[in-house]
């Protein structure tokens, strides 16, 4: 497969991706394709390799085998086509809110341009802060803001670069429940207004289902033809992949029967160490979903269907 042709024409594409740290296999045969405009949430039990997957897509780490493509280009290192919002440390403590948001602009300019275009960047960043409702905080330092406000600034900071994908790793994990819900609504509104592609990693089931137009379940709790022998090293795989209706819903939707049933199912297939589905039985119903299997497994899957 050449790097030029985006496999499947999707914005984000991973195929046969493995990641091992020494003897420990973390990710196993990850196949994942995400179309532009998707708000793709990734959920899974803690320690299942969500953050590892995140770092592979960023290019912060290299896959042991397999390849990662963003917009048809193989990922090599972190770059401006992928913006990030972390749970913490997204903002620079020594810069004001305005300077934090401007950073993407000032860094792009040459040394002399930085001075020359200072006012222009400042206006642009201020405009951006106004749109995101942060204008009154422009002169403050990050530590002077509440946790929710800090994350809004972090999102604005990442969006200034107009990234192809906004990568978010537990961005609301450190917030109190009420702020967290507010931020979820805020993110959905932002997503709808800008029609961005978002890759959202979380361990919170409700958050994943509420936000995602697609929910990918990553888990090490599954089985395959190798059985359960003690020598079998097994990394996390995509064990579930759901398409969900996209809409900014009231957070009350979290109380509906459908919502609860889906959360229940995901919890069973992904989080329960006693429920082990065979690789051929994964619930991969999202249209972008695909799976590469070992020849043996593929035969078994065909026989089943």
């Amino acid at each position: 497969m050449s790097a030029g042709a985006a496999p499947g024409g999707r914005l984000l594409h991973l195929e046969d991706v493995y990641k091992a740290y020494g003897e420990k296999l973390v990710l196993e045969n990850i196949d994942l394709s995400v179309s532009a405009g998707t708000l793709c949430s990734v959920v899974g039990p803690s320690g299942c390799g969500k953050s590892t997957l995140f770092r592979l897509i960023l290019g912060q780490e290299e896959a042991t085998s397999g390849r990662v493509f963003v917009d048809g280009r193989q990922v090599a290192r972190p770059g401006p086509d992928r913006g990030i919002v972390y749970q913490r440390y997204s903002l620079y403590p020594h810069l004001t809110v305005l300077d934090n948001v401007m950073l993407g602009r000032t860094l792009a300019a040459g040394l002399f341009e930085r001075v020359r275009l200072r006012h222009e960047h400042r206006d642009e960043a201020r405009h951006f802060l106004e749109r995101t409702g942060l204008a009154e905080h422009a002169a403050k330092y990050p530590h002077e803001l509440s946790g929710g406000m800090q994350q809004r600034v972090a999102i604005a900071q990442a969006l200034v670069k107009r990234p192809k994908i906004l990568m978010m790793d537990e961005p609301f994990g450190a917030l109190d429940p009420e702020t967290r819900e507010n931020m979820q609504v805020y993110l959905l509104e932002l997503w709808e207004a800008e029609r961005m592609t978002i890759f959202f990693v979380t361990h919170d089931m409700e958050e994943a289902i509420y936000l995602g137009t697609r929910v990918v379940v990553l888990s090490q709790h599954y089985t395959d033809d190798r059985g359960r022998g003690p020598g079998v090293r097994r990394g996390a795989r995509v064990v579930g992949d759901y398409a969900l209706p996209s809409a900014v819903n009231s957070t009350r939707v979290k109380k509906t029967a459908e919502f609860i049933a889906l959360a229940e199912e995901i919890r069973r297939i992904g989080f329960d160490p006693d429920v082990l589905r065979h690789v051929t039985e994964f619930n991969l119903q999202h249209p972008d979903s695909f799976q590469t299997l070992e020849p043996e497994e593929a035969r078994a899957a065909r026989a089943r269907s």
Partner: protein
Amino acid sequence: MPVVAAEAKQTSPAAAVRSNVLLGLLPFVLIVAVYLFASHERLADNPQDKLLPSLAQMAEAIDRYALQPDPQSGQYVLAADTWASLKRIALGAGSAALAGLLAGLNMGLIARAKTLFSPFLVFLSMVPPLAILPILFIALGVDELSKVALIFLGVFPVIARDIQLTAERIPREQIVKALTLGASSADVIYGLVLPQVLPRLIDAVRLSLGGAWLFLIAAEAIASTEGLGYRIFLVRRYLSMDVILPYVFWITMLGFAADWLLRQFIARRFRWYAAVGA
């Protein structure tokens, strides 16, 4: 203790501050009183005694050294000594800060640089600077350079290691984030990490000033023609405690002032630093 708590409740904050200040001053008052008493006793016994001069004798010495030009050189001795010493300490500590910043940043952020320099730096920091003072005098002469070099060698390893540790503590997330915002490696090191370690650098300099004074006075005592340390060791030959005591007091005040100024500078210029506590 309930009695103490009840007492504390009754006093107003302003009164509490006042009593704290008074309490803190008490040791100073005591030591001055003891000194004056002992001095008075000795002088009453023997008016020629030089060991514990009276306040009047010290005032007379201060007048001679600080307020009257020296009859031979026409210079104000205290001012000239202060200027010479401050110049040396500023040059030594300043160059150590600059070199320590660059070395620490690169060792903290670039694995290769750390592998290359870290063992050497550990070794260097173990060498007692005063032990190599003779080498410095032989190699660099007894002029300014060897004194500045001594301060540099004493202060540099401490600052470099401190900055290295501070740079290593910068979260990895910040650096990855910078790359996604279009930063180059130089941007990361000099644009984002350097400004964050700057207040820590000033703090490190502040804390190593005590050592810097030690090296300065040691170097001046051995080979010099002016300087605060030189003067103290010069007049020691004549048992001139009336000069030594005000000089020691003056050096202490200078150290105190430098510390205070640097702390004020950090508090004003780096408002975020105290809150984040790098």
